[in-house]
């Protein structure tokens, strides 16, 4: 049944090229765990190491307490869903789903029962005798999913399973995947570069960059309290500003402009210095247009009305450009050239060390072992 997966100092090399230098983490039993990162970050490589299609150059991978480094894929009891579905084109839907069971010692009768049940779960019973070429992308994806789950694998691995579907189907399928995973309760490792998709389906997300884990946490925590500047800018949209912090009388003051200071009660500074360089991440929705004289001065450069929200680009008095998102209101949209004052929602913004770019904001929960 479902297992936990432990990685100890995993190394992946292609020739002299090290893709994953040393990676350690744990995936809990039954959780939906997503590897998220830009292309080339090593997320698919890592997934294929779990599957057994990539060799492991160093370190150990355990399923529960069993070392699987040298087990061939056939013996790892995994279910895998591929980016291009990899549905066998010469077999019917039913035969595709039954394929894995036929390789195990399962009676004919039980194969039939389990295939029937699984076809119902993924809602493709009506197409059981069709060949894959007569199915839509979404239906093929359901076949691939059914085929991977029906063998009751210890781990379900999914490699960007939705990237070949159109936008609407993608949302539909990700809900279906989430629902089915909850129902069967298999430990699932999911690879994607789409952060919205990752947040929608995952229990926890590991954000990767250049073969290293940046942050492991719940979608909410990763979005609201990113561990470093990279995570802040990769997940959602944000504006990064170089600023300074001043510690005075035990209070930490963030100096946003010469005239706009805010007192922060949730940042940790070790140095008691006059000017501590920091990077501030302010998401577009964390700005407010001030109705008073308080705030950073700026000029509207452009606006874009998108229905639910209205987006603005504003040039600050410091010369930086920031993106702002406001819920659309009945009031007139601010035209380019309008002078504005900007305030920030201080409990929401994140502050990072100016050099290490690591968060100094309280509330970061990072399960990455670093």
């Amino acid at each position, binding site marked *: 049944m479902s297992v936990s997966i432990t990685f100890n100092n995993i190394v992946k090399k292609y020739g002299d090229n090290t893709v994953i230098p040393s990676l350690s983490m744990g995936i809990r039993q039954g959780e939906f765990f997503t590897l998220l990162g830009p292309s080339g970050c090593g997320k698919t490589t890592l997934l294929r190491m779990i599957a057994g299609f990539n*060799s492991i150059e160093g370190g150990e991978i355990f399923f529960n307490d069993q070392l699987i480094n040298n087990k061939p894929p056939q013996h790892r009891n995994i279910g895998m869903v591929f980016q*291009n579905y990899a549905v*066998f084109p010469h077999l019917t839907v039913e035969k595709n789903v039954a394929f894995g069971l036929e390789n195990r010692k399962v009676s004919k009768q039980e194969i039939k029962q389990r295939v029937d049940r699984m076809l119902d779960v993924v809602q493709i019973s009506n197409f059981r005798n069709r060949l894959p070429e007569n199915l839509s992308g979404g239906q093929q994806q359901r076949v691939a999913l059914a085929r991977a789950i029906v063998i009751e694998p210890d781990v379900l691995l999914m490699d960007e399973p939705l990237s070949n579907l159109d936008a609407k189907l993608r949302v539909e399928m990700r809900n279906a995947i989430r629902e089915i995973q909850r129902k069967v309760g298999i430990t699932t490792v999911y690879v994607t570069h789409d952060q919205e998709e990752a947040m929608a389906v995952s229990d926890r997300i590991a954000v990767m960059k250049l073969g290293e884990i940046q942050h492991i946490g719940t979608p909410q925590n990763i979005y609201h309290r990113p561990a470093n500047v990279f995570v802040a800018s990769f997940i959602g949209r944000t504006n990064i500003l170089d600023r300074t912090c001043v510690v005075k009388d035990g209070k930490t003051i963030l100096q946003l402009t010469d005239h706009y200071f805010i007192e922060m009660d949730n940042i940790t500074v070790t140095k008691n210095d006059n000017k501590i360089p920091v990077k501030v991440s302010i998401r577009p929705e964390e700005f407010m247009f001030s109705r008073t004289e308080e705030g950073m001065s700026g000029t509207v450069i452009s606006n874009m009305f998108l229905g639910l929200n209205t987006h603005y680009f504003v040039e600050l008095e410091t010369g930086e450009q920031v993106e702002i998102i406001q819920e659309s209101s009945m009031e007139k949209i601010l035209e380019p050239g309008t002078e504005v004052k900007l305030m920030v929602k201080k409990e929401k913004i994140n502050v990072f060390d100016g050099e290490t770019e690591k968060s100094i904001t309280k509330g970061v929960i990072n399960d990455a072992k670093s």
Partner: protein
Amino acid sequence: MMPNHKNRDIWSVITIAILILYAIILIFPLFTILKESVVGGESGQFSLEYFAKFFSKKYYYGTLFNSLKVTLSVTILSAIIAIPLAYIMTTVKIKGSGFLQGLIVISMMSPPFIGAYSWILLLGRNGAITNFLKDTFNITTPDIYGFTGIVLVLTLQLTPLIFLYLMGALKSIDNSLLEAAESMGCVGYKKIIKIVVPLLIPTLLSGALLVFMRALADFGTPMLIGEGYKTIPVLIFNEFISEMGGDDAFAAAISVIVIILALTVFLIQKYVSNRKAFSMNSLNPIQAKKEKGWKNFWAHFYVYLYVALAFLPQLYVMYTAFLKTSGRIFVKGYSLDSFKMAYERGGDAIANTFMIGFSALALVILLAILIAYVTVRRRNSMTNLLDIIAMIPYIVPGSVLGIALLLSFNKPPILLSGTAFIMIIAFVIRRLPYTIRSSAANVLQISPSIEEASMSLGASNFKTFFKITLPMMLPGVISGAILSWVTIISELSTSILLYTARTKTMTVAIYSEVIRGNYGTAAALSTILSVVTIVSLIIFFKLTGKKDVSI
């Protein structure tokens, strides 16, 4: 890639076994020929006397120039005819274009020497058209024998090769490229010369290479219609099978010269086409448009004229098969006597063709599947070597291979000359490069994740190959096999060297009947061969749903 050492070894064993097989049936014979060519007849020492002999007399080295002249003319003419043909068939709606393409393929797949024979029947000294023009208008037609005839026959025969390559390339040109050119004022002939032709150059180069190799190696055509005009394959054949006792070593030396020539051309072509290579991807292919007026007329005229020239002579051969004959001459009236004669004289040959052809085909399929799979999916230095070796026959003319096999296997421990087995070996070696290529293209289209999916579901590597990969390869392999079959049964240049009375094939029988002047019997046998070819091709078209073939 696969961390499964046991199964990796099984594929390595297969690779090594095939490499050893190639070493025996291809590398060893080629070395034998090289050895024979540089060892002096009397001294038994290293000597270049045979090469000196070749370059000392015009009678010998003249054939090299003849071959080059023929080959270059045929290659250039084929390209000149094929470019407009392919362009018209792609851009203009031609009535019955699917059927015409089928005819073009059939005309390409039939043996070239039947083409030569049919032109002799039409324009030869006693040809139907020659006589008709002489009797009715008192016009003397130009002499068809010699250089003109060879070039005529081979050009008509090989134009379809370039044509099919070009049709494929034109399909991959995105129409928006042409529209972009038009929007910038580049239209008409300017558009064709500045945009279309440059886009076709890489394809044209690879098609031209194939035509060059075929024309260089062709033996039957110059033998039948060349008369005094000797090309290299004819010289090799004569020197080897001379009635006054052939000179094996001299034939070997000429063979080496031909291989060097073919290799040089091959390398030049590779060098040039690598520099010109680019890839195209068409979302919006060119659509054939209905044209009006003169443009429409000339388009149809050109296409129909070509197809008529390429195909009608063969129809005429079939027609003569049903004519009454008296001795060697056709007389008035129709009968099936020629077929009776064909069966009496060539019955064994028909049986041999099927027996040897099917045996060769079975081996070709088996080896092509294994080689294609290991060279695409198990890339390592050993499979790369196999890939290169398997392509060698591409530049070795059939007659050279025939001599190499005879010289190598005419004495124990491996005594094969005179057996059907040596012919099967020759057919397998010659056909494999093409079948491997089409099968490899097939394997490439199968996504590796399909195999990974199978393994992730618990199937062993071998089970994955037999239950997943092989069934997915099969449609492509079968269609490739039908083409191999057609080429095998129409093969002449190797069989003419290897056959004995017991292993005579249809092509050899037709050739000997033509040489003896038994035109009726030859025509009947040709008709049977053509019918088998056409039926095979129709099965191919039905099976693949394609209108063209990839060679």
